[in-house]
């Protein structure tokens, strides 16, 4: 089933989705677009390349409250915070980002320990994938092709969307998506030429070239292991690194977090917040010892985690080549170039 | 009901705290909105204390120290003057009413000055109404 709507009427679609549940969609901010919970359907803005921050926050929010507690005289009362089971519509996710969810699933949802927060949110969410606009130039930072992802891959989406001139075509991919699509009465059925356009776009997506490097996950995993002690290399590639968390916070695949208690007036919340392996105190131990005091050690950890440890542990690279880290890096460190350099060693 | 502001006072041990004691010894009457934290010197006051106090819901913050030149530690309050003046400018540019933060030099013998300042400041903060901007909403 292929449906369509005029892009200028996108707010109508948004309004319908908002009635059914929570809508997360790109909105324009000063610096660019980001996913946000929509309160005003007019705010939904599909005129974007990709968001600054990845949509991972839909399942793994920057701040997830677990428990609310009250420190009492004899007993501390605690109450678990339940994830809202209301349907969520994650609208306008680029194919590389859709792919990132399945990689994160392994960690949060499949590797023996089920993270209830991630898994419940995943279940409640319908993903509206959205092909890149093939008429726009590729951003120089992107390299998702190198990871086998293409600009118009519907895989992983429940509904996949393609922009056709002034229209938006929506295709149900999964039964969940099909079902929802059928209920969205602001949409109209797409015509034959739309069908054709949709199919062609998927094909043309393969031709829409980002930077490309032949990355065999086992080769790179071994390579990085082999060059682990090549301090010259790591020092050189990290010499500009500021050790901030920009890259990891915008990354769709970084999942490290910290758990902290925030208490005021004896009442508090235990929550998890995003953490970054690039932070100095990320590995700081209670004893005061810190195994990764140097910038190069931290950057090496980040690259290795994504391209080596993750491969060994979960059988897949923890990177989708969305280019966000490169774009957000205050000093333009480019993970692609580092991998490229490493492979040459 | 009238709004009764909660005001955090931070007083240096040697001058303002002693001055506040003197106000009591001489049985001066003043509003009870100010709750005083004693520190050894006004220079002990970390600017973040002020930000934190406002986050904790203080409607105003009153800092008291020795008169410049009379600091028990010679020059502590001269540093405090610069550091707290800067704090005030920061609050102001952030859009916090400048009237919510005040620094006063009150010596150990100025019990009446302490009472006066508390009276004045309480009225001033009362007129500004509850401080909601920085207060952490539970």
């Amino acid at each position, binding site marked *: 089933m292929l449906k369509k709507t005029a892009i200028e009427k996108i707010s109508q679609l948004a309004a319908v989705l908002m009635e059914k549940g929570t809508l997360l969609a790109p909105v324009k901010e000063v610096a660019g677009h980001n996913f946000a919970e929509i309160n005003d359907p007019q705010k939904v803005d599909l005129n974007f390349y990709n968001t600054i921050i990845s949509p991972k926050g839909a399942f793994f929010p920057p701040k997830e409250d677990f428990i609310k507690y009250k420190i009492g005289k004899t007993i501390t009362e605690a109450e678990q915070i339940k994830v809202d089971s209301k349907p969520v519509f994650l609208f306008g996710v680029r194919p590389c980002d859709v792919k990132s969810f399945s990689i994160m699933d392994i960690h949060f949802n499949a590797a023996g320990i089920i993270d209830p927060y991630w898994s419940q949110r995943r279940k409640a969410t319908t993903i509206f994938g959205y092909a890149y606009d093939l008429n726009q130039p590729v951003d120089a930072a992107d390299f998702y092709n190198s990871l086998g992802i293409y600009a118009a891959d519907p895989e992983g989406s429940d509904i996949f969307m393609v922009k056709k001139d002034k229209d938006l075509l929506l295709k149900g991919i999964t039964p969940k998506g099909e079902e929802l699509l059928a209920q969205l009465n602001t949409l109209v059925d797409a015509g034959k030429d739309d069908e054709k356009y949709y199919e062609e776009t998927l094909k043309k997506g393969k031709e829409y070239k980002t930077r490309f490097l032949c990355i065999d996950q086992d080769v790179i995993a071994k390579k990085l292991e082999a060059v682990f002690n090549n301090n010259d290399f790591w020092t050189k590639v990290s010499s500009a690194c500021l050790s901030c968390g920009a890259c990891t916070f915008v990354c769709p695949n970084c999942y490290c977090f910290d758990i902290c208690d925030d208490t005021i007036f004896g009442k508090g919340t235990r929550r998890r917040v995003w953490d970054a392996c690039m932070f100095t105190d990320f590995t700081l131990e209670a004893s005061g010892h810190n195994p990764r005091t140097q910038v190069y050690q931290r950057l090496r950890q980040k690259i290795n985690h994504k391209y080596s440890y993750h491969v060994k542990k979960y059988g897949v690279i923890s990177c989708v080549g969305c280019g966000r880290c490169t774009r957000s890096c205050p000093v333009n460190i480019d993970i692609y170039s580092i991998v490229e350099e490493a492979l040459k060693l | 009901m009238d709004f009764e502001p909660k005001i955090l006072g931070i007083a240096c041990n040697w001058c303002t705290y002693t001055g506040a004691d003197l106000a009591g010894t001489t049985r001066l009457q003043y509003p*009870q909105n100010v709750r005083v934290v004693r520190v*050894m010197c006004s220079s*002990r006051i970390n600017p973040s204390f002020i930000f934190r106090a406002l986050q904790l819901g203080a409607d105003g913050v009153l800092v008291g120290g020795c008169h410049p*030149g009379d600091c*028990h530690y010679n020059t502590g309050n001269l540093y405090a003057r610069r550091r707290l003046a800067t704090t005030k400018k920061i609050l102001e540019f952030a859009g916090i009413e400048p009237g919510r933060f005040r620094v006063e030099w009150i010596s*150990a013998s100025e019990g009446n000055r302490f009472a006066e300042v508390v009276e004045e400041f309480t009225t001033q903060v009362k007129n500004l109404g509850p401080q909601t901007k920085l207060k952490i909403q539970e």
Partner: protein
Amino acid sequence: MSRIGVFVCHCGLNIAKTVRVSELAEFAATLPDVVVARDYKFMCSTPGQEMIQRDIKEYKLDRVIVTACSPLMHEKTFRKVIENAGLNQYLLTIVNIREQLSWVTHDIEEGTAKAKALLNGAVYRARLLAPLTSRVIDVNPDVLVVGGGIAGIQAALELANTGTKVYLVEKNSTIGGHMAQFDKTFPTLDCSACILTPKMDAVLQHKNIQMLTYSEVTEVKGYVGNFDITIKQKARYVDHNKCNACLACTEKCPGKGVSEWDEGLVKRKAIYIPFPQAVPQKPVIDRESCTYFIKGKCKLCQKVCEQKAIDFEQQETFSTVKVGAVIVATGYDLMDTKPLVQYGYGQYPGVYHSLEVERLFNSAGPTGGKVTLRDGKEPQSIALLHCIGSRDKNYCEHCSRVCCMYSLKFAHLFKEKTSADVYQFYIDMRAAGKGYEEFYNRLIEEDVKFIRGKGARVTDSEEEPGRLIVEAEDTLTSKFLRVPVDMVVLCPAIVPRADSKDLARLFNLSTDKQGFFMERHPKLAPLATMTEGVFIAGVCQSPKDIPDTVAQAYGAAAEALTIVVKDKMELDATTAMVNPASCCGCQNCVRVCPYSAPSFNVDKRVSEINEALCKGCGLCASVCPTSAIIARHFTNEQVLAEMEGLMEF
């Protein structure tokens, strides 16, 4: 988890009147970590103290909160209490609900509510308190006394007699102070010199006293038990080691200076001793009036000096003394009455101030003890004007305390030495001292005319040139009076020494509104100051008569002794320390510390604090961007927690 005991004091009705104390204790019992909460009539009394100690044992308390009067009042008392029960003294928190609460409100609702908030703050803070170990330091057994007036002399002698080494610093070239200027003392009329000069001599002779005349304190370093005090010896231009006090020099000297000792009534030589009984009996040269220093030649004194003691090249020198305690007894100045033009001082020669009159009576004074006016004539009528500048909101609010009595003394002496009519213009006659009222009664009988009314103005007389008219309102008859007299004696306000601010700064003393040095507590610590180890005695604390001054001198000596008799003492443990793991090496602490306690370890790239130098102000902790500096007992966590507790309710 802490085990906190809360002890709420009623302080009789002082607190209980405006704070519902039992409700406060009940409230305390509901707070987390509070295992026992009680209220009691007088927590500082023996039963109160024992209650706390019993509960510490019975409830295994590890924190104690006493909700009572100001910590400045009884923190030390209760620290002792918990320490004797086996708890570290720094685990005590005092909540001030008296001075800063019950005494400043009439509203019991308001009082109780605020008391709860304050107590809650204390509970938050108490949880984070840490036991601290007091530093034990060696105590220097010597004492410095600043000021060689009667207070300083008495204190120095008392201390010296116990075997304590005393340094007595005096700004002038002789000790003796104002008392040495007086002729008689009230109310007994005994001769001032007769009772003072033996003491001055005793100072000179005492082997335990090192007298440093013509000297000033210029720098104070260190702290109680270990002060390092720099003393400037002004250039005397006479080598006192060589001088044999023959005073031949003073006879030959052609220089003429104004005699400060005689309050400017006469001239003295450029090389001089201030008065014949001066101690030491050795002269100094006043540069300002010395012919050699003015014109470059003379040196007559040098020629006549057989001891070759004159040294025109002498420079001021600085020496450092190490002492364990200091007594400041720097006395007073008279207020300068020239700006009070209505009294005509400096304008009419017949107007005198009280110290000038003291000199007129003195047989060693400018007139040899004869009461004559500046023109040499004996006055036929004399007016004594009380409260010039004192008890006056425009100038000094305080009462100078001794003027009534010395005016009576003057009146008596005038009657004795002249046949003049004597008028007393007073606001109130204050004669609250042993024998004072009796002395007043005696004077009434001596035909002194008492006019209850403050002298308002002194003018010259148009009818009788040379005479003065004193204008006043007699408040008993409500009549406006104009009294013609030959001589007017002003009793100016007693004010702090002109340089007392500098001294206050040197010793870190607080001053009151008038500028007198502040005592630590007006009742319970009248001689101690906010600076540990520095005591005050005499008029530098507030105006008082000789008996009170001497009593304070004894007291201050005893206070100083309590410190220096011990060879070790405990210092407050509330110093700062550096957590090297958090230090970012910015050196802010090094830049700001007034005591140079922090220093930068170049090898480790972190700051370190010398706790012996730290006075615990906490400045370093607030300028430390990484919170690496822990201001013990006032740590960031403790202050933040207290703030949180205070703001909760």
